[in-house]
């Protein structure tokens, strides 16, 4: 298992890494101040690897993805620092025309809203064909056939008829299939799916996830799945990166993160997923809301909502409210941004790891 941490601090890149994001910071300068939407994010995805970026809405997942694609509007946005190594190139310093060739050609992206993400005045075939024409330099006729084939690949029935239709003639699930067909039409090395199922019905969600997974396995493209729903990651990805308030708070393989969450935030996220084992129990949700970007807590960003946060009494010891923890490596590629994992607080960590330790008592 390769580390998902930015272990490559020395600058060496393992050859099987397709995307290597380092210390990414994206800020928005708006009227009321600066929003640090992404504030120091590092992660890697292996070739054909599958990684999920998880976190509540507003924690900076989409901005991370859009920064990788360099689709941030500047202004008001600013990519303040970082490197995005993709196939031996830093995308953030790539000339604009080369970056365009990467977009759609080597990295493709699917968005959350299939209803608004397709152009209402162009036919489906036109929109799929456009990508193929751009990146594979096909003629109109060939592009049309490629579009039909792409639709067939994603399981759209009667693709010859569908290519000539406009988005408003398709259902939400069908449109998301069109988006996937469009994204995959140029055989990208990396597919970024930003909440691809959030806007869909539950039954359709399943189908679309299955489709993404099946295609990923068939074509071997790497996958960056963005979701706020830990429930969908189990069967879809290998590794998980949990984000909170623009920072990574926990990383690990999907089994480790789901079964043994190290960060209180991840634990909170997990206990809010309905599951068979917990049937009959009350679902707990994390109290409170993500912090206002203009009034970030000075210490740990999760502290105001954290049931395990404590106030220290010992002079010189860091406190949750005042000192922000580092992303602490826990070995085996796991990491967690929480004072619990600081050697000084092993006693508290034992409390945390006691299976019965309810959130309320700990406070």
């Amino acid at each position, binding site marked *: 298992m390769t580390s998902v941490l930015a272990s490559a601090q020395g600058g060496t890149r393992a050859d099987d890494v397709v995307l290597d994001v380092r210390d990414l910071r994206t800020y928005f300068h708006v009227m009321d101040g600066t929003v640090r939407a992404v504030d120091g994010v590092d992660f890697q995805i292996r070739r054909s690897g599958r990684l999920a970026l998880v976190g509540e809405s507003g924690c900076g997942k989409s901005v991370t993805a859009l920064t990788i694609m360099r689709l941030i509007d500047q202004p008001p946005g600013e990519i303040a620092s970082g490197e995005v190594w993709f196939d031996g190139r830093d995308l953030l310093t790539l000339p604009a025309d080369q970056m365009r060739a990467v977009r759609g050609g080597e990295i493709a992206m699917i968005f959350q809203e299939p209803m608004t993400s397709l152009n209402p005045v162009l036919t489906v075939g036109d929109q799929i064909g456009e990508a193929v024409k751009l990146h594979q330099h096909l003629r109109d006729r060939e592009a049309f056939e490629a579009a039909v084939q792409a639709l067939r690949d994603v399981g759209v029935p009667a693709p010859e008829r569908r290519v000539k239709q406009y988005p408003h003639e398709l259902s939400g699930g069908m449109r998301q299939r069109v988006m996937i067909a469009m994204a995959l039409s140029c055989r990208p090395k990396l597919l970024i799916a930003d909440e691809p199922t959030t806007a869909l019905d539950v039954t359709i969600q399943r189908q679309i996830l299955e489709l993404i997974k099946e295609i990923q396995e068939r074509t071997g493209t790497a996958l960056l799945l963005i979701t706020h729903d830990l429930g969908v990651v189990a069967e879809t990805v290998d590794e998980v990166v949990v984000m909170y308030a623009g920072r990574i708070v926990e990383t690990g393989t999907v089994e480790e993160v789901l079964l043994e969450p190290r960060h209180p935030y991840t634990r909170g996220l997990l206990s809010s997923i309905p599951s068979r084992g917990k049937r009959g129990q009350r679902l707990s949700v994390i*109290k*409170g*809301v993500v*912090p*206002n970007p203009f*009034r970030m807590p000075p210490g740990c960003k999760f502290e*105001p909502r954290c049931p395990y946060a404590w106030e220290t009494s010992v002079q010189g010891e860091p406190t949750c409210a005042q000192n922000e923890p580092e992303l602490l490596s826990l070995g085996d590629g796991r990491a967690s941004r929480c004072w619990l994992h600081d050697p000084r607080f092993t006693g508290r960590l034992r409390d945390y790891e006691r299976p019965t330790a309810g959130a309320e008592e700990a406070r």
Partner: protein
Amino acid sequence: MAERTVAVTADLTPAELEQLLLERPDYEVQLESLNQWQLAWRRFRRHRLALAGAALFLALVAIAIIGPFFVHYDYYEIPHPDELVYAGRPPSWISGDWDPPLLMGETARLQRDILGLVVNGARLSLVIGVGATIISVVIGAVWGGVAGYFGGWLDSVMMRIVDSLLTLPILFLILVAGKFLGRGDWPSVMLIFGLFGWLGLSRLVRSLFLSLREEDFVDAARAVGVSDGRIILRHILPNTLSPIIVAATLSVAGVIIGEAFVSFLGFGVDITQPTWGNVLTSSLDFLQQGNWWWAFFPGFAIVLTVLGINFMGDGLRDALDPRARI
């Protein structure tokens, strides 16, 4: 318990307030209670252009009210009796002749101080602009309100009439009415502009009523037996005021321009009365003699007024109706 108290003076949305309370449960939050209009005033105050526009407009209103006491438009009793066609003097600051001081020069022919005409013209122009707008707002609100509230065939008939009238450039009708029905005094001109100016407004009010009548509070009022008239006046109308105020503001500007043009053509206020349009009437004929100041200053007064009103209207739109876009 509550050690720290913050008075929330900014206009937080309910969501923001909730967030604040969640973040800082130990804070006691005192919410300054602000009604819709106070909030709007806060937003308006922050709109610099709108403030400038309002200042400009108020200055003109002040000039219109008190100006005529200081500057008379028939400044000279006797025009040069010995000259057949008097050429008109340029502004003093151009000619250097300060006896008498002429800020905006003099008209040709009748030798009148343009400053006096412009200052006195402000009165009628503003009165007609505001008065006609009030008339059209009343008619438009009633017409559109009734059509939108009752709907059905009544709505179809009423709106078809509006549509028909809107297929004609309204100015055509105003000109014809001014000539055929007008009496050359300012109330009749105001009335004509008021009677033809409500069409667009009635459409706006109707669309607002159409959506508002589906709201729960209307059903609730109906369920307890409130009469239709009362529902329209007390429950729905107050909710339509913001867009109506914005549209009315912009309409004042439209009437001022329209009145000037109609009077300029001689179909509006009688030529013996000073309005900005009337002052301009013969100016075109004397342009060849280089009498540009005669045409320039009255028109410039119109532009300043309209600019001020438009700025104000934009600010009001942002303040009253933050979701609306251009």
